[in-house]
């Protein structure tokens, strides 16, 4: 009677797997929406933000310029004209929020002239402009890592893995 039992066992195992995958698919989004991503309680120093920018430039060879802004939209560190960065970053987030009807977390725009990456995390924001065909996932990863470090009151240079 071995074969029928084996078939039944296989069928049960497959059903269970399907249920688990389904539960995972349903539950994942819920988990991420429940993860708190509140405002940073730490005061971010200009030096730490400058160090974070230097770190980003070191990690991203395609980087042309970047800025880090606080919750109020003030520039903590930037390459070049801080007022222009503040103004244009605010304009970008305003347009992006309006486009989707809710606050965006990440913006990625590619044009013939270059690419723009913008990320909000823990009440801080980072904007980076790169050459075309920069690796977007790595750029966002580095930006998120440095914002997370700054939000936690770190030096702006995230620890390695």
């Amino acid at each position, binding site marked *: 009677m071995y074969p029928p039992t084996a078939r039944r066992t296989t069928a049960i195992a497959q059903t269970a797997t399907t249920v688990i995958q389904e539960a995972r698919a349903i539950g994942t989004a819920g988990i991420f929406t429940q993860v708190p991503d509140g405002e940073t309680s730490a005061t971010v120093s200009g030096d730490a933000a400058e160090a974070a920018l230097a770190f980003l430039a070191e990690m991203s060879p395609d980087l042309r310029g970047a800025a880090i802004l606080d919750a109020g939209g003030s520039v903590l560190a930037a390459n070049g004209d801080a007022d222009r960065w503040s103004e244009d970053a605010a304009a970008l987030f305003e*347009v992006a929020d309006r486009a989707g009807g809710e606050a965006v977390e990440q913006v990625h725009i590619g044009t013939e002239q*270059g690419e723009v990456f913008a990320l909000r995390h823990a009440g801080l924001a980072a*904007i980076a402009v790169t050459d*075309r065909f920069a690796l977007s996932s790595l750029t966002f990863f580095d930006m998120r890592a440095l914002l997370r470090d700054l939000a936690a009151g770190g030096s702006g240079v995230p620890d390695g893995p």
Partner: protein
Amino acid sequence: MVPKPHRVLLGRVSGYADEAAAYVRRRRALRRPFARLYYRDGRAEDHAADSVAGGELFVAAGRLIEVAGKRPKT
């Protein structure tokens, strides 16, 4: 049977031409501008350049690219 030499040459030339055409096609697809927004629930939205929101996003991005300027030569 060994193919005639000129056929080998023709085969190679057309092979290179096919490769080049595929490269140009991929390049053209990659160079197309895009505006992509990501939300906290993991959702992502694309906005076409000819839509109102897309146009505004490209204008805002263009200003940031202008502020960043050119990449410093190393």
